């Protein structure tokens, strides 16, 4: 299994967008610019969100976990975006009901079915209202990085910085 890329460059603050498509484009274009995903990742993740919504009405702060097929990914990463204003995402498993999302965790996975412990830890974070509120209000990317590294146990998943 390859290492997970994670540092301040995939943490975005004050992301603005009128709708979920604009927000997804901003976050995924950043990953393209950094060579972590292919250009095809951008339309693929927007299309997938339209087909299979990923908004989650979690405790206190709604989140979304957009993801798409592995072939669009160069290097496994999780990109975190704090939205300046909440943007409506359709709720996972629903066809029209939306939730006002403030935190986006974009998953760029390079192998299917191989991220179980990471995903379980991520879902655990979604159940911690205090952690989500901290992330939404934090203006220091390094603090966000440190908190998530601790919560998601990234140290076990990756080697050194790149």
């Amino acid at each position, binding site marked *: 299994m390859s290492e997970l890329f994670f540092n301040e460059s995939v943490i975005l603050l004050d992301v603005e967008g009128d709708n979920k498509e604009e927000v997804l484009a901003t976050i995924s274009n950043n990953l393209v610019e950094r060579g972590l995903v292919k250009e095809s990742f951008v339309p693929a993740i927007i299309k*997938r969100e339209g*087909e*299979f*919504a*990923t908004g*989650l*009405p*979690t*405790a206190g702060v709604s989140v979304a*976990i957009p*993801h*798409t*097929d*592995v072939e669009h990914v160069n290097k496994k990463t999780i990109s975190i975006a704090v939205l300046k204003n909440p943007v409506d995402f359709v*709720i*996972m*498993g*629903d*066809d029209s009901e939306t939730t006002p999302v403030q935190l986006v965790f974009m*998953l760029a*996975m390079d192998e*299917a*079915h191989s*991220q*179980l412990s990471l*995903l*379980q830890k991520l*879902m655990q974070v*979604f*159940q911690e209202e205090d952690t989500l509120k901290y992330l939404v209000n934090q203006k220091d990317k390094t603090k966000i990085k440190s908190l998530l590294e601790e919560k998601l146990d990234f140290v076990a998943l990756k080697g050194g910085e790149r």
Partner: protein
Amino acid sequence: MAKQVLVACGAGIATSTVVNSAIEELAKENNLKVDLKQIKIAEVGAYVDTADLLVTTAMTKTEYPFPVINARTFLTGIGVEDTKKQILEELQK
């Protein structure tokens, strides 16, 4: 005989992995044998003759000959005990 349980999400990458593991644990805790199949929602059609239950985080409007349980609560934690109860009831039928 072990019941066949389909666990499906849109991409078959993220959410079904978590749900799959949660059901595995649930079955173990209750000494139930299950035949878990982690698939994409688009692949459900291939299992209509064999499956006993579909647990999914994706939306599905298709009618199946087996019950469908929404698994979103496994991701948010809100209402997860009710979902587990629903799944157990189906497994114990």
